[in-house]
């Protein structure tokens, strides 16, 4: 009887192929409807159709299509500005693309990076906004509790694989080491020693001296392309600029640091910067 539905007898392969075609068609339609709702900003409806599309993809046992739906779901959350959720979906899609060695894998990876950048930018914009709201305060006139920030900076320093590690050297010994590093043009060590000297001055609240050390360290770390150390120097410089009331330079340095830590694949370091910014701008979690 069922054969009559198609009017003539077909092989099992024909039926399976036809079923596959119907699934593919259904999948395309469901995705198009989701796209339609997304364009109109009707996120819930878009998600409903994407969930249906996902079930079809699972039924078809097509991993590539499953990843495509997860990617689309991420787009819906991105449109809703729920960036963390969006990133989760993109990461799931990336995992699937990776597992099947899909050519879309690299594209997905780039997309995740871009969205993470977007997330940082939004957070920075929020910091700006927060500062604007408290515009009766002049930057630099904030009461900054440096003692709360110093442990965070130490954690950041502890993450570096410094070339030069003088555990308990005196300032004089460090200055001698700095002279030697400069004499033999050992730029990596020179930069590391400048960072240590800058840190010591910073902890002594001698910010002008610290600033000079950090600026020299910044130049050398840029030359040696030591991103983690350069990022750390940028954090110190950002704080000093903030203390001096130069909010623009402070944010520029924090932004640079976040980018450098991201390039170094160290999200924990980026998180420390955010904590420091919260302490500086007195933003509650």
């Amino acid at each position, binding site marked *: 009887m069922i054969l009559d539905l198609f009017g003539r007898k077909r092989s099992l392969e024909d039926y399976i192929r036809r079923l596959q075609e119907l699934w593919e068609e259904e999948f395309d339609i469901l995705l198009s409807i989701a796209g339609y709702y997304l364009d109109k900003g009707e996120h819930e409806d878009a998600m409903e159709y994407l969930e249906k599309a996902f079930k079809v993809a699972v039924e078809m046992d097509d991993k590539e299509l499953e990843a495509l739906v997860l990617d689309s779901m991420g787009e819906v959350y991105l449109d809703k500005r729920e960036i963390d959720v969006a990133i989760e979906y993109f990461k799931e899609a990336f995992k699937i693309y990776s597992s099947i060695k899909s050519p879309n894998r690299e594209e997905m990876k780039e997309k995740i990076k871009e969205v993470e950048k977007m997330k940082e930018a939004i957070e920075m914009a929020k910091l700006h906004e927060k500062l604007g709201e408290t515009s009766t305060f002049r930057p630099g006139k904030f009461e900054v509790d440096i003692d709360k920030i110093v442990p965070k900076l130490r954690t950041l320093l502890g993450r570096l694989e410094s*070339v*030069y*590690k*003088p555990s308990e050297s005196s300032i004089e*010994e460090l200055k001698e*080491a700095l002279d*030697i590093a400069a004499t*033999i043009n*050992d730029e990596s060590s020179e930069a590391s*020693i400048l960072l240590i000297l800058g840190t010591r001055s910073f902890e002594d609240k001698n910010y002008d001296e610290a600033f000079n050390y950090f600026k020299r360290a910044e130049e050398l770390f840029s030359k040696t392309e030591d991103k983690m150390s350069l990022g750390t120097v940028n954090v110190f410089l950002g704080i000093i600029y903030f203390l001096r009331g130069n909010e623009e330079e402070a944010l520029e340095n924090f932004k640079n640091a976040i980018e450098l830590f991201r390039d170094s694949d160290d999200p924990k370091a980026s998180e420390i910067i955010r904590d420091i910014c919260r302490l500086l701008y007195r933003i509650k979690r």
Partner: protein
Amino acid sequence: MISVMFMEDHNMEFFDYLFEDAAPGDLILVYGPPKVGKSIFCYQFLYSSLVGGEPCLYIVADYGSRQLEQRMMEFNWFLRPYIQNGDVYIIDLLTRLAGVKVEDSGTLKFSSVQNLTDLMVKVGVSTRSLFRKSSKFRAILDSLTVIFAFNPPNLVLRLLKAYKARISEARGIGVVVHTTGTVEPSIENSLMELADLKLCFDGEKIQAESSAGEKFVQYTITDKGVKNIRG
């Protein structure tokens, strides 16, 4: 001329002869292919220094400080009493690199072949101490092979210039060991230019070259170290 005292008097002339053109503040380059006795020569130079009452700095870069003691023991040259008396400073560049956790002690310092600034800081500390102890001392760097392997060659050359300057200031005698063929010929040439006296080992003879001219002696290695063969 550097007076080199050896345990066996007949060897003394041989070494005095080799070093007669060297003066305090000079840098001596000991070079040649592998396994021709360069390091043994250095152990002998170190031990003769200590026996003669001259303190010494030994930078061991190709193996650890424990191995240095063990290798010297094979020739019955015992370092331990001199370490305990503070007559020999050792800077060990390899033990930390091997992942062993070690701490500096009075005359035994640990640094790294990857941290030449730190090495020079420790050379400075050691040479100052040795200078206070004696107006004459020796400093031996054995060898440049691993240092070259871990650093840009030009950085190593700058290190050597600083090393030479530091030893000269303190009126010591510096010895540096280099295995030929481990760096580009241009770098090897620059090394040669830095040295005041060059001792080339080839397994049969030691060729000495300085501004005073060239000479050579034939040698062999026995259980008493490097010995000349009288022709």
